[in-house]
């Protein structure tokens, strides 16, 4: 197990380093340095930037200092919003984005697994066809279109939910729904297909031959094995939810990190783009790492193989 974790940890650090380096290389190669473009006419901001990015020093030194600032989680000042550092923006926006992301994943996993399991148990039945049609639709409709539809129907036409912002649980319903539909559909399809495969396994037949009740067979024998592949895609799914949140926050005017990020892209606010990219990448890579570890804990085959060191 330790070897497994170490290996994953090493790959994680390598990936992080590549992203940090990549952002640096891209930023210094931007035609006409991003830090003295006409967009940052403000004197103080200009000085702040130069101090932070050590633009007067040679490139390798700049790179090392940049690495140091990333390690110390100091992402420097924003160009557009004077007197605001990237850290300020992250500190304000990230908790809200994290909240949105958490509820989205929660809804997506619970409903996806339930729908997928039901579909598999009623293979080729009406529930199956219905669930899978809904799932394909869920995958096919881009979340920003779904979000607009939801606002138009449920918020504007019927006024069931508020149109935008992030204040009460009621405000959360539409954004979470818009963001969770895609991942839910993916989870439902995956759960269904792995469940169908697991149900044909000999150990399920064996469990039936023991005379166990269907409920016990499904919960104890089938679901746990069927959910393994679902765990492996959780990381990728999280990436999708995060990138999805960029647009969803924009549409619903939620003051999260995603909204700041999209704004920074539109204003070419490079420090914010860089800082957010690095921060989000690190966050996701750590999440992927945790998912890997969780998988190792869930599957006894991985745990023991590594412990015995073969």
């Amino acid at each position, binding site marked *: 197990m330790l070897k497994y974790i170490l290996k994953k940890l090493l*790959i994680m650090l390598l990936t992080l380093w590549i992203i940090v380096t990549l952002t640096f290389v891209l930023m210094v190669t931007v035609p006409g340095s991003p830090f003295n473009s006409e967009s940052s006419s403000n004197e103080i901001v200009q000085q702040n930037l130069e101090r932070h990015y050590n633009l007067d020093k040679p490139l390798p030194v700049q790179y090392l200092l940049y690495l140091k600032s990333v390690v110390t989680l100091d992402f420097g000042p924003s160009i557009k919003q004077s007197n605001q550092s990237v850290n300020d923006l992250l500190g304000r926006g990230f908790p809200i984005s994290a909240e949105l992301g958490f509820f989205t994943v929660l809804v997506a996993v619970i409903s996806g697994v339930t729908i997928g399991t039901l579909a598999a148990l009623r293979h080729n039945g009406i529930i199956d066809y219905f669930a899978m049609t809904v799932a394909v*639709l869920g995958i096919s409709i*881009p979340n*920003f279109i779904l979000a*607009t539809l939801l606002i138009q129907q449920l918020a504007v036409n019927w006024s069931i939910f508020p149109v935008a912002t992030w204040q009460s649980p009621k405000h959360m319903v539409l954004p979470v729904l818009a963001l969770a539909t895609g991942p839910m559909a993916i989870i439902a399809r995956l759960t269904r297909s792995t469940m169908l495969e697991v149900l044909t396994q000999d150990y399920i037949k064996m469990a039936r031959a023991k005379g166990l009740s269907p409920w016990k067979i499904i919960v104890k024998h089938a679901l746990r094995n069927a959910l393994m592949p679902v765990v492996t895609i959780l990381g990728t799914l999280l990436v999708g939810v*995060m*990138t999805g949140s960029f647009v969803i926050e924009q549409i619903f005017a939620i003051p999260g990190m995603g909204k700041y990020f999209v704004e920074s892209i539109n204003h070419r606010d490079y420090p914010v783009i860089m800082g957010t990219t690095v921060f989000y990448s690190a966050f996701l890579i750590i999440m992927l790492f945790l998912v890997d570890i969780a998988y190792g804990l869930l599957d006894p085959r991985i745990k023991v193989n590594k412990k015995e060191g073969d």
Partner: protein
Amino acid sequence: MLPEKNPRDVAIEEIPDEWFTWREQNKEEQERLSRPSLSYWNDAWRRLRKNYLAMTGLVFIIILVLMAIFGPILSPYDANIGVLSKQYQPPSAEHWFGTDSAGRDVFTRTWQGARISLFVGFMAALIDVTIGIIWGGISGYKGGRTDNVMMRIIEVLYGIPYLLVVILLLVVLGPSLLTIIIALTVTGWVGMARIVRGQVMQIKNYEYILASKSFGTKTSRIIRKGLLPNTMGPIIVQMTLTVPSAIFAEAFLSFIGLGISSPNASWGVMASDSLGAILSGNWWTLFFPAFFISLTMFAFNVLGDGLQDALDPKLRK
């Protein structure tokens, strides 16, 4: 001759004596197989044809491609030049899909957009496949150290959140058709390479490959003739699923302001431009691009699913 009764109901005495004579054996009868033998592709096609949803998807895709080619030509309007006095006209006989904020014909723009969206989708898929097959093929076929190094690289790349890199690249390179395709494929090929590698690893140990190796067949020939045809199934499926995800990514990028720049239009640009319009009642400006993005993704997804079922020999019943 006795009727086709349950044989056990036939009394032995009823059976005429002359039936007790030796029978000519014929080889053909012995070897009669329990099912007509079909080649892999014939069999897959037969199964795909029975999958109505997948066939619907295929038909939609063909229509979309045809319309993308001929739609803008057939239309009397120019996709990028509008008449401001004809701003926001609802669908009518004159403008089938209405007009947008600049008085441009949405029908023409939809098919113009289809060209770009489908082009992005197909190019991304094609490039992914090319790199993926080369990388995965070499990694899987060589095995050992080479494979180890190549796989570690993949593992690292796989961990990078792909849209973030795409965004970063586009911010630096500036959005254009070319840069969008480059950005989408920079990390997109990784999934394909993994699949190809897995397939190649599995098949390269099959006897027929070992046999041709023992005859001294050249490596490149073994890969081309022996391995690739047998790995095509999963590759085709993955390709079918890459197209919609590239189309989605393009739409997403347009939405956050990194799409194809105007006056050119992709579906993503059209949809994000008109998100506000829907609230003011001009639903058609959003509806048509949104509908066609969803329809295209739907068509490719169901076709991909259908192909997966049809090409997977394990499911052969």
